């Protein structure tokens, strides 16, 4: 802002309808330039200097009251400019001339000084905002409201039982979940892995598997311990809470190159023998509409080799 521009904008400035940031710039110029200040004083509308003595003799008094009046008229708008700059300064220091302008204002204006202090402290306030973590009940409720209620714990196991490929997973989950209740038979089982020399696995690999499993059992125990006893949690919620962890564990354990993975083929054969299902893997019983139809179900008796016998059979929905 130079003197020529100041004079151009002076009428608007004095009328009070000059928008920001021009207004702020005018104020800054006026406080620095005695000539323009004088000019502004001369052109000040009469009603704005109502409390200025008209006597030429008391020029000093007149001048002082004019300064007071200008301040009264300007600080409001100018504070708005400063506030804006203060808010911008939350993200980092202002550029030199703007920072200077703010500092000069703050020396004079206690109102803006207070605000500057508070804005400066804002990041500390934001850091104090608490963070929440979604718990198992939350997940369960979301799933119940979208995909329908989660299958019950036993139902899940039954469903797995009906899918031979997942029998081992189901058994492992069973073992993991009952471990905290039964006092750690799985831990004993993992300890017994040490005696599996006959499997011709390197000793350190066995030890590695053993520690990994033992650690996971402890994890599961503390996990379940934290779940039980808290508010409105059913068995279902417990299941959801540990499910992610169990899935991860199973995935890791069942990776084809893992010790367990290499045993799965063997176990599967056992399971198939157990249920007399050697041959092509069975179909998914519940996914087959024929099972729910009694007439067709009877018809299925003739294709007995495709259906699981014994326990799983009686679990079918009527």
């Amino acid at each position, binding site marked *: 802002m130079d003197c020529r521009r100041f004079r151009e904008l002076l009428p608007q400035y004095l009328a009070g309808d000059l928008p920001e940031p021009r207004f702020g710039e005018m104020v800054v110029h006026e406080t620095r330039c005695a000539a323009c200040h004088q000019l502004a004083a001369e052109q000040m509308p009469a009603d704005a200097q109502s409390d200025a003595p008209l006597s030429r003799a008391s020029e000093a008094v007149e001048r002082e009251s004019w300064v007071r009046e200008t301040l009264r008229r300007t600080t409001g708008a100018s504070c708005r400019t400063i506030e804006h700059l203060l808010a911008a300064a939350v993200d980092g220091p202002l550029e030199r001339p703007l920072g200077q302008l703010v500092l000069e204002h703050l020396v004079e204006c206690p109102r803006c000084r207070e605000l500057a202090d508070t804005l400066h402290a804002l990041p500390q306030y934001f850091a104090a*905002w608490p963070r929440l973590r979604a718990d198992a009940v939350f997940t369960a409720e979301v799933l119940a409201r979208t*995909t329908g209620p989660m299958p019950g714990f036993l139902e899940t196991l039954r469903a797995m039982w009906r899918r031979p490929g997942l029998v081992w997973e189901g058994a492992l989950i069973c073992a993991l979940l009952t471990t905290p209740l039964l006092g750690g038979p799985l831990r004993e089982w993992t300890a017994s892995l040490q005696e599996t020399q006959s499997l011709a696995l390197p000793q350190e690999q066995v030890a590695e598997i053993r520690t990994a499993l033992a650690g996971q059992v402890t994890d599961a125990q503390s996990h379940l311990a934290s779940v039980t006893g808290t508010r409105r949690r059913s068995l279902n919620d417990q299941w959801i809470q540990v499910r992610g962890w169990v899935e991860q564990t199973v995935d890791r354990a069942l990776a084809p190159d893992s010790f367990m993975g290499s045993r799965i083929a063997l176990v599967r054969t056992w399971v198939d023998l157990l249920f007399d299902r050697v041959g092509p893997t069975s179909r998914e019983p519940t996914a087959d509409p024929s099972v729910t139809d009694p007439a067709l179900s009877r018809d299925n008796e003739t294709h007995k080799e495709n259906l699981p016998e014994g326990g799983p059979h009686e679990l079918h929905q009527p």
Partner: protein
Amino acid sequence: MQPDEQLVGRCRDGEARAWERLVRRHQDRILNLAYQFTGNREESRDLAQEIFVHLYRKLDQYDSRRPFRTWFNSLARNLCIDHYRRRRQAPPVVGTPVEEIIGLRSSIESPARRVERRDRRETLMRAMDSLGEVSREAIVLKELQGHNLDEIAAMLGVPIGTVKSRLFRARIELGRAILKLRQAVSIPEGDLGL
């Protein structure tokens, strides 16, 4: 980790497990977003669940060429704003319940610092409640969610200059509100550090 966009595709094919994974992946973030808008734990739970239910119904409308996160953020933000607007029309019970903090470095902190932090938290929560929806949104997205101005502009569909001026106005409003609350109990803020 499977990208969100792929998971959504599997969700659309009716795979319940994919949906569960999507929920698990975003639930903490969405719960916190809802909490930042409501400032109330129970309310934020309901609101966050509402967001997921809404997302589930709208999955078919998702355009897989766009990043999922941006799309989901806009959807969540719209519901939060609606909720905030409704709530301001019928203000809830006076006083913010004392919230339990999870995952803060509480064990390292001295008791004095912990008290200071709790004061700040309560002051901030009350001051935030006095903000209009536009200002609250600016504070939540920039200061609490930590998005940058470009992201916010994309999310809200407004120019970056608008985001900036909204944010500055929101900070001033918030600063004044905090000042007022502190003056009510006369705690001065620290030294000026400009």
